[in-house]
């Protein structure tokens, strides 16, 4: 069940205010009351409300004026205007000013219940919309079409995505930077039972601790300097959907404890707040770090690790799945052609060989950038070797130092790729006999795509 709607009842008549509030509580809503416009705005500066039920006739600031102030200062709060028979004109005016609906007193219980259900649906849409806006603001692409792979390793990842998507258990996605951990997280979400709920992502490595706390938990007005109004955190925004904590290995011990408490108690408070809030989300975490190593170094809590690592998915680096490089490149060429409106470019053979010979320390993200640059630089619809600009091999080695065995394996892969996976020819280039190469391939699980 998703968190209850926060409703503010604004009416100058005590009996009306109290009875509406009591009735809404029976339906599981969190309710606050205000006797007038000024008190309502004061409460709204401290708390976030999903819905305000506002009586149109009040002394001082009337319902219409309050509606306008709410729509200007808290545009995400839905407003229902309550009016008496004979004030239809005001109701029309209220609808024009942004009210979601209006009710004529006394209203039919069924009518009120249907309206509240409608508002609940609108709130879900609003939240999803907010999450989408956040994703677009972060420059992210919705969907999971960028996960491309034919290698046995990636086929195994796809299978694992299907398996874990059906459950509600926390997932930990591991893999080097640029391997597409967030795309995998989105794929899990979009194939699961919460697909229609929001997917809320946050990069924990990119935030200072205080900021991360406020981003995750939200804050009340005045919680710290600059907190001029109350704000929902990502935990609340993820209600009914999924929360994706990227670079979870960068979270401080203090924040790990705070998050562990949320995962166990299913309750939390905004920074500077005292009200217990709940949010129903699926947790998906990702890291490029070896968390077990961080645990042994005392830099990551074991209890938190066990909580987030119920199901695990490892995405292999691109250098371990050379057969995915060309399909991925073709996918990006299609994508950039669509985006730029330029004719779809094609890779020349030497360009393909170069792509397959490079160790890709930045993984799929780096490949995407290389292809994008090449598409922009290529004068026609052919991409030649010289239009591919990589990080220098030396920089690549420094970014990801390899063992001797890994270097040997990479070299074998490159030669096989260059020889179209002809084992005899590759063995000849490598200066070893065919049988030796076959044994090495079998041991490393190498086979033609």
């Amino acid at each position, binding site marked *: 069940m998703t968190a209850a709607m926060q409703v503010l009842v604004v009416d100058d008549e005590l009996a009306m205010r109290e*009875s509406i509030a009591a009735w809404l509580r029976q*339906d599981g809503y969190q309710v606050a009351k205000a006797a007038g416009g000024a008190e309502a705005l004061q409460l709204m500066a401290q708390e976030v409300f999903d819905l305000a039920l506002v009586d149109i006739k009040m002394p001082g600031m009337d319902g219409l004026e309050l509606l306008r102030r709410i729509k200007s200062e808290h545009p995400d709060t839905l407003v229902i205007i309550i009016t008496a028979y004979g004030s239809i004109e005001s109701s029309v005016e209220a609808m024009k000013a942004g009210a979601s609906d209006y009710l004529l007193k*006394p209203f039919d219980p069924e009518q009120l*219940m249907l309206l509240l259900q409608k508002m609940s649906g609108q709130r879900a849409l609003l939240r999803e919309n907010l999450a989408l806006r956040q994703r677009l603001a972060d420059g992210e692409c919705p969907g999971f079409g960028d996960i491309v792979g034919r290698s046995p390793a990636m086929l195994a990842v796809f299978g694992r995505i299907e398996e874990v998507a059906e459950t509600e258990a926390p997932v930990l996605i591991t893999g080097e930077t640029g391997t597409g951990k967030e795309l995998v997280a989105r794929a899990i979400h979009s194939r699961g039972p919460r697909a229609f709920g929001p997917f809320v992502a946050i990069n924990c490595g990119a935030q200072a601790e205080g900021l991360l706390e406020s981003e995750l938990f939200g804050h009340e007005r005045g919680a710290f300097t600059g907190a001029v109004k109350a704000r929902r955190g990502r935990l609340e925004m993820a209600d009914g959907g999924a929360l994706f904590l990227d670079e979870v290995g960068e979270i401080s011990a203090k924040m790990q404890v705070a998050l562990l408490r949320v995962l166990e108690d299913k309750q939390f408070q905004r920074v500077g707040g005292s009200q217990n809030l709940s949010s129903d989300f699926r947790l998906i975490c990702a890291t490029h770090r070896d968390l077990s190593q961080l645990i042994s170094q005392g830099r990551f809590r074991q209890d938190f690790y066990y909580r987030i690592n119920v199901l695990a998915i490892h995405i292999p680096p691109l250098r371990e799945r050379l057969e995915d490089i060309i399909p991925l490149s073709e996918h990006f060429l299609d994508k950039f052609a669509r985006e730029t409106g330029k004719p779809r470019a094609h890779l020349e053979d030497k360009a393909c060989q170069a792509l397959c010979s490079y160790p890709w320390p930045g993984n799929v993200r780096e490949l995407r950038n290389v292809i994008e640059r090449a598409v922009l630089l290529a004068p026609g619809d052919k991409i030649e070797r010289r239009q591919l600009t990589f990080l220098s091999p030396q920089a690549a080695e420094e970014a990801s130092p390899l063992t001797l065995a890994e270097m040997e394996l990479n070299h074998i892969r490159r030669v096989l790729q260059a020889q179209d996976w002809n084992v005899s020819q590759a063995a000849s280039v490598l200066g070893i006999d065919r049988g030796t190469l076959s044994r090495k391939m079998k041991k490393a699980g190498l086979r033609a795509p």
Partner: protein
Amino acid sequence: MDQQADNQPGAESAPLVEVVPLGRVNQTAAAVAAANLQAIFGLNAAVSEPWPEPTYALVPTRGQYDAGPILLALAQGGPGPPLRLGLTGRDLCLPFLSYVFGEAQVEGRAAVVSLHRLRDAAQGGTVPRALMLERLAKIALHEIAHVLGLVHCRAPGCLMNFSSSLAGLDRLRLGLCPACNSRLAWQRRRLLGQASRAPAGPGPPGP
């Protein structure tokens, strides 16, 4: 009748719920409400002497009775069992709602049920007495569950579904879904614990 497995009926000696007829109310109706509270929720319930008609709650312009003041009178009507359920033949409303079958104080002490509309049939006329009493039992249980802290539930058929029409009420089972049932069992244990710490004597007559 849908017996709730977790709720063992009437093991306690002192009543936990006082069923209070407000004015002239059929005695059988009061006995049915008490019996169902005991059988379905395992809450020992006793019918008290009638209290006066709730004339203080009359809304003259509407010819109906505001449930709010009645709840207050029931809650503040002196000591007695921890929960109090009023039964009235009058038509209940709230200041903002055109009618209610019943009303309750969530996590409070009092609930009230109106028999006024329960005889009505969908196509006009009246329904058999047995169906009227079943409706009464459903509303009494629903409202007392609110007093015990339960809120509306959307599980199909659960007695804690919101229902503002008699047809909707007739579709509900005389029992709770597993989730509501376990919440009720927990609240009942809490209530029994409280009652054993502060045994309640019989209450004085109401207002």
